[in-house]
């Protein structure tokens, strides 16, 4: 059974269960069955924006559930629904990973419910719009905060503010879905129609992020495949383009390049030897003329508006270092310097970190006009961080 069929079967089962409960006169049970099913399904669908850990849509369902269930019902539903929802998420990663995620989800859900209850209990007018909205927002946000803390403990990284669009979509949708369910002060109550209808924008966001994610993966894999062509032709050492791209990106980040500049640098790094395959002369026994390779490669890239900036970087790569004011294209020239040094370093080390100290010494012994000093310093810092060079005191 494919994943989609499994999810559809689950949705149908949930709907049948809810219908049965409704026909038996147990409306509250029907609502809880629908929301449990939604929670299980929501856990399988995640907002996965670039530069941020995934956010499950179940976080929004938890906020609705807080309003729909009494405390004990909430606890039971969350324990049961997450017990069903978590295993498919962690399939293949073992019991420990499954237990850890299950525990995390319970803490997030119970934390959300506790915060919501405290917020309502400690205010004079718990039915007012401000209090209800604030409590709902807190319930949604606390789940994200706990998830972020777990990510930080696991990966020592925290998503920057610019990657938080999905967070905003999730929090606002969760608030609307919960308001739609129970209304505020007796107004605007739509029952289950509320969460159902107000999940549409969230689902639209999920779909857009999924499209973006798969297209991004295809795009970079295409770039990397193109970049690997000179290696398969025996013109460049295997893995050179990938290693240079990784190193150049780290150096670019170290030097404070913007996101767009980093992406252009990464593209250029992957494709900086593409021109070699178009030249008539080169064979594995003959060295490549770096200027001719750069010219041929950049000419192809500059033909396209999207890749033109990467083409400028490739063209600037073989050039000597000059004072910034002597150049027309500052950004491309600087990125070209990063690419040149990353590529030279990889050629000197042949991809072997043990040669790093020797390679760096060789770079330092060259004339000052060959490499930009700022870029060399950035390389050194990156190598220190990687543990390839001993850290300076």
């Amino acid at each position, binding site marked *: 059974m494919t994943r989609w069929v499994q999810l559809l079967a689950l949705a149908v089962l949930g709907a049948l269960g809810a219908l049965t409960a409704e026909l038996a006169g147990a409306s509250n049970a029907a609502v809880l069955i629908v929301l449990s099913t939604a929670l299980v399904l929501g856990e399988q669908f995640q907002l996965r924006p670039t530069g941020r850990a995934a956010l499950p849509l179940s976080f929004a369902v938890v906020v609705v559930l807080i309003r729909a269930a009494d405390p004990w019902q909430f606890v039971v539903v969350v324990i049961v629904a997450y017990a069903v929802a978590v295993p498919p998420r962690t399939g293949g990663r073992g019991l420990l990973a499954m237990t850890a995620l299950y525990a995390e989800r319970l803490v997030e859900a119970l934390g959300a419910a506790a915060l919501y209850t405290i917020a309502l209990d400690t205010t004079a007018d718990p039915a007012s719009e401000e209090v209800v909205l604030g409590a709902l927002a807190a319930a949604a946000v606390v789940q994200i905060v706990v998830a972020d803390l777990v990510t930080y403990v696991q990966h020592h990284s925290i998503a920057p503010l610019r990657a938080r669009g999905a967070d905003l979509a*999730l929090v*606002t949708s969760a608030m609307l879905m919960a308001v739609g369910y129970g*209304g*505020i002060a007796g107004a*605007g109550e739509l029952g289950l129609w509320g969460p159902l209808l107000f999940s549409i924008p969230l689902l639209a966001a999920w779909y857009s992020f999924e499209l973006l994610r798969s297209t991004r993966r295809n795009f970079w894999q295409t*770039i990397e495949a*193109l970049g690997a062509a000179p290696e398969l032709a025996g013109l460049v050492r295997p893995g050179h383009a990938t290693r240079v791209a990784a190193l150049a990106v780290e150096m670019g980040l170290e030097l404070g390049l913007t996101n767009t500049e980093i992406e252009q640098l990464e593209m250029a790094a992957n*494709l900086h030897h593409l021109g070699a395959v*178009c030249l008539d002369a080169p064979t594995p026994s003959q060295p490549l003329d770096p200027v001719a390779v750069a010219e041929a490669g950049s000419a192809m890239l500059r033909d396209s508006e999207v890749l033109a900036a990467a083409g400028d970087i490739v063209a600037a790569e073989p050039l000597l270092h000059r004072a910034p004011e002597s150049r027309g294209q500052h950004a491309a020239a600087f990125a070209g310097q990063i690419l040149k040094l990353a590529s030279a370093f990889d050629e000197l080390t042949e991809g072997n970190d043990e040669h790093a100290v020797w390679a760096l010494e060789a770079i330092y012994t060259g004339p000052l006009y060959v490499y930009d000093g700022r870029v060399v310093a950035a390389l050194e810092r990156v190598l220190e961080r990687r543990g390839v060079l001993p850290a300076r005191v």
Partner: protein
Amino acid sequence: MMPRANAFRVYSALLLTITWCVALLLGVDGQLPAWSSVLLLGALFAFAENASVELPNRSGLSASLMLALAAIVVFHSESPYLGPLLVGAFGCLYIPHLQRREWAKIAFNLANFALSTLAAALVFTLLPFGQQDSTALEVLAAVPTALTYSTTNTVLLAAAVRILTARPIRVIAREMWLGDLQILPFAVLGVVLGQMYLDLDAWLVPLFVAPILIARAAFASYLALREAQEATLSTLIRALEAKDRYTAGHVERVARFAELVGTEFGFRPRRLQRLRYAALMHDIGKLVVPNQILNKPGRLTASEYAEIRKHEVASVELLSRIDFLAPVAPSVQPEAAGSIDGPLEARIILVADAFDAMTSTRAYRKALTQEVAFEELRAKAGTQFDPACVEALIRVVERRGERYGAGHETEVADYAVPPPAGGTGSAGLGDLEAEQEVSK
């Protein structure tokens, strides 16, 4: 005859006059809406139009339909026609038009959005379930109301495009109307937004708009990245053509034949896109073959031919690195693709590649006629090629009345040594006789 631009100006002025007259009559009739709601919803309407996303088929995707429906519900009791009309009029505040001072377009948009929203409001009011207080009934009313908005908008816009471009109005209208249908779920959401706005307050609006804006931003990034992907493939094609000047246009033609066959087989858009990308990349392995061999006029030696064949292995290796193309990677290896058990995409590309190879002049022989190429494909059907793919290609080429091969080539390389006239061998044909001869 009146120039198109002038005709459009007259058309816009006429629509604008009608809009003003209707608004005036409604205003005199005493239907004055709450101005704060008009301003808030109108500003959001204008914002939605400015934040619309252009789809690959050049149509726009915007949330303005949702806001039009919300306005219809919000003003339903106090100002059922003038309120929605005024909110729709804000659609003229499209910043690029304002910056370029394109007054005719601004006037047209004002009238178009205002009249479309008015027509939808009329239907909503006339519908029996639009007059009830039940949200469920209002949600039902959203569908015919949205269809009215969409149809009116399409008719007025299609007429404008007809005036400006002279394209058949039915074709334009169909494209636009189908595009609008994609956002029908947002029409339902518009009705709910309107009802919640009445029940609760304006604070609801930012909560509602935020996820839509996030979705819009992600979708716009996706479209930009898709364009970047196309640009990358174009770079690959340029690289291939820079290397192998005797196969100019080959990959694009193969991609087109493959797409035609895929459409003939009823492929869905995503599968068709994958087929196209795989076809565009099927020769990527040629990048590893030395130029002097690829461009050698006349026949190849056995070792040179072996070098050429390396490109198939390299193509598989490179395509396998791209997740969504990996399943069709065998398409670039005739031995694997010829298998009936192989992916259908692989078999389609093999036939498309062979057909283009035979109907194009190559360094080692001149182009064959289309009839000979068809005969050759049919002769190898069942052994080298999938018979269904062969017949689908022949059917689609004949149905379209297209001609390829000797006497019909659009791109022929300037050969240093004229290619021989005989033989059917080609890199795309695998084990045909001429290749055996070459390798001797």
